[in-house]
């Protein structure tokens, strides 16, 4: 990597939370418009963040707070590795560790809603982990490497080869964005049978941390989606934005469904599609030879 690229990666990493926050703001604005409301200003997520940052923190257990930091910092590590074009599998492994921190945070206090949320969060990971790993494998089949650099070296857009994988990623994105029909462990809005699930016991500054982490996560997954059309990059960014809006529309036209349904869809449709995609690539012979 040249120093110019390094600087660019660093800048992208620094911008990630800003972009994530703005996207969340757009999310809230667009959702409100879809619901016939005017909605909050685009900058609302930042107001929320700073307000929470300035509030007192109530503590149920100290460990709870430690894991919140772990969740944030590890997600940041994953995002950092993403912009530094590292190994996709490792990035997803780190992301899984970060997700586990959130789960441990929820488990670390003996509170029923927290625990229920944690169990559902585990199920969500069970649903999207295989999709992400397999999507990385599908990308590998075309580019011949798990390194993100390879995607850029590949020189062609990936989407025409990996349409089914792309669809599967949408499921993972929906789960990660905590949007209907997959907002089962902790949705962005309240009014849920398990209160706010894994977030329930957090307050003040540590809730702000989790919000921030969420922004990073969105950027990471949308970044991964961008890779499907990395050359030229702006098309990829447009696609990512389009997919983001698509998620919002789906969120607004569907009810929250249950974990069994989620697991069924992500395993049957998600994994099934990616494997079908791999078979297609294999049959077409356009995979990397060893």
């Amino acid at each position, binding site marked *: 990597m040249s120093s110019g690229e390094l600087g660019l990666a660093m800048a992208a990493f620094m911008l990630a939370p800003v972009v994530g926050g703005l996207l969340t703001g757009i999310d809230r604005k667009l959702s409100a418009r879809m619901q016939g409301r005017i909605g909050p*200003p685009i900058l609302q997520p930042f107001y929320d963040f700073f307000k929470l940052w300035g509030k007192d923190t109530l503590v149920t257990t100290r460990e709870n707070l430690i894991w919140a930091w772990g969740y944030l910092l590890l997600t940041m590590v994953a995002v950092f590795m993403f912009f530094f074009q590292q190994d996709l599998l490792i990035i997803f492994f780190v992301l899984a560790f970060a997700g586990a921190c959130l789960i441990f945070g929820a488990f670390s206090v003996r509170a029923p809603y927290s625990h229920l949320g944690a169990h559902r969060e585990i199920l969500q990971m069970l649903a999207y982990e295989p999709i992400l790993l397999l999507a990385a494998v599908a990308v590998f089949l075309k580019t011949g490497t798990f390194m993100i650099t390879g995607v850029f070296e590949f020189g062609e857009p990936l989407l025409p080869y990996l349409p089914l994988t792309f669809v599967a990623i949408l499921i993972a994105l929906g789960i990660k964005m905590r949007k209907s029909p997959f907002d089962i462990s902790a949705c962005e809005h*309240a009014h849920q049978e398990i209160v706010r699930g894994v977030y329930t016991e957090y307050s003040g500054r540590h809730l702000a941390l989790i919000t921030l982490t969420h922004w990073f996560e969105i950027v990471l997954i949308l970044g991964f989606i961008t890779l499907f059309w990395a050359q030229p990059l702006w098309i990829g960014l447009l696609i990512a934005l389009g997919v983001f809006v698509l998620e919002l529309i789906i969120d607004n036209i569907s009810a929250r469904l249950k974990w069994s349904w989620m697991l069924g869809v992500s395993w049957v449709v998600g994994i099934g599609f990616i494997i079908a995609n791999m078979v297609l690539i294999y049959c077409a012979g356009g995979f990397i030879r060893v």
Partner: protein
Amino acid sequence: MGLINKSRVKSPWIVHYCCGGCNGCDIELLACLTPLYDVERFGILNIGNPKHADILVVTGPVNHRNARVLRTLYDQMPNPKAVMAVGTCASSGGVFHNCYNVLGGIDKVVPVDVYIPGCAVRPEAIIDGVVLALDKLNLKKSTKVG
């Protein structure tokens, strides 16, 4: 702290607890969230969890059983926080003042910052009350040192 104070005004999250009212104020409170009034314009969210909320919105009079619930909810909110008594009953007991199980207004249990009269309260009045509560909230400091 300028940024944080500004944000505080822009993002009041409320937690709603219905003490023992007749639901009239509750549904008006909910109506505030919906398209006609849309308080999310002002960053107001009904967050449903005291640990995340800034403003405790209470409707209905306090009775013998829910008094301690109200107190618990208040205690579980992080500072700075404000309490709004929505409706005449929440303010004073209202039409239920002579009921045997009613203690009276919610100020018998928690300190109230804003009283919003009305039976039932109109959504406009609730929005007005939130604005008042925000002013009060801004005067309060978090208990944090520094």
